[in-house]
């Protein structure tokens, strides 16, 4: 479906009349991002997670400059792919190897592509994890216990989030 909201249409009109106005350009970019299919899908997938409210919510977008918004618009499709694959990596891939510094920079396409290349879903496992689709970005949290040793005990880990490489 492709349609613009009335707000989007209004700012499109403003931007033609007031070409140099930064706030109009910014508002138009925000409308554009929020109507992007990828942005809406990201909201659906991680809308309840801390990262979304801290970095991608409408309020947060309003804090960004035109340059940042432009970069975000370019990065979003790959970032959506990265986020989707992260969930499967936690359940069946190499999610147990992710560190906080692996989390991609949402303004850099290279950073997102680099992270995508680290995800391995070719070798599959049935990982032991208490992480769910509601909180899977916590895999990047250093407090989350991660291990590539399938014999690691999970019973002692009930109070923390964990992702342990599984066996077949």
């Amino acid at each position, binding site marked *: 479906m492709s349609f613009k909201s009335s707000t989007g249409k209004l700012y499109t009109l403003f931007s033609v009349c007031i070409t140099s106005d930064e706030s109009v350009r910014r508002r138009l970019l925000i409308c554009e991002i929020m109507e992007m299919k990828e942005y809406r899908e990201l909201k*659906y997938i991680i809308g309840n997670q801390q990262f979304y409210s801290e970095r991608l919510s409408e309020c947060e977008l309003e804090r960004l400059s035109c340059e940042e918004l432009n970069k975000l618009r370019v990065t979003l499709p790959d970032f959506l792919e990265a986020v989707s694959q992260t969930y*499967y990596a936690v359940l*069946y891939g190499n999610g147990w190897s992710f560190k906080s510094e692996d989390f991609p920079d949402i303004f850099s396409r290279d950073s997102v592509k680099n992270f995508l290349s680290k995800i391995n879903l070719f070798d*599959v496992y049935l990982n032991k994890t208490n992480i769910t689709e509601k909180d899977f970005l916590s895999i990047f949290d250093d407090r989350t216990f991660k291990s590539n040793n399938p014999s690691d005990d999970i019973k002692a880990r009930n109070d923390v989030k964990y992702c342990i490489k599984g066996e*077949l």
Partner: protein
Amino acid sequence: MNSGISAEEDKKNIEKLIIETNEYENILSNALKPNELSIWESLEVNESYPIFSYDASFPDKSDYLKTGVMSGFMNKLMSGKIEEKYNDACLEYKIEKQRLLKEYIYNKVQFEKDKTERNVEADFLKYHYKNGEKTAVEKYADTVISCSQYPESLKIRYKTYYTRTEKKLTVNFLLPELNDLLTDRGILINNKDVLTETILKKIEKNFYERTLISIGIRTMYELFEAISSELVRKIAFNGYVPTNESAWENIDFSGHMRCIFSMESTREKFSDINLYTEEPLKIAESLNLLRVKNFSDPMQLIAPIKVQ
């Protein structure tokens, strides 16, 4: 009756036609009931993908040792073979499980991707629909019409236009020509062996007009029921028929088709109508029906209700 068709087949065809004819005659009474108009549910996916399961059990070493107890050299030789066999079975088990898990992940990814896309589109539509955005209201109206079950053989195409300022929805419907609707109906009527050609034609003409007008009334009813009164207060319906086959390919309601009837009603006026007891033609007349005299005459047409 076709001489090449067996009596059994002929009987089946007639039974099928009777069922279909009844469906056509009940177009109005088969309109979706308010509780069946769960449009959002039809757009969303709520199912979850099943969890991975692999039924085969891991090879049990003791099963491989049950081949008998031997002593000395033979025992050593056989235990080496047994170990090898057991390891092969373990490897085979892992390879097969991995293959099935990969297949499972691939299918789950596709399922979740489709689910996300559909639910996001539904949310987006819902949000813009509630705000009365033109495209969203039109898309929603299209979904309502597409959810309505008509006889399988009925060929229809439609386009909806929403005017926010007037809270008006105009529906253009491309309907079948007489010949397309009644291809086999003559067989059924002929079977009764009591009808003259003139009476048959009259029955067909009435049936055709009644069907087309019923589709119009039913569409208006379902749209009034499904769309909030805050968004739509008036509905106009234009019934078109094709003037040639290419009309079905490019549905723009500008060429290759002629408008043969139109109706218009406010929500209040429509709420007085009893869909189940009143005759379709009588209902249509109360909805400002404008029509050509003969639906099948290619020279007759009226000006459709314009989209503002």
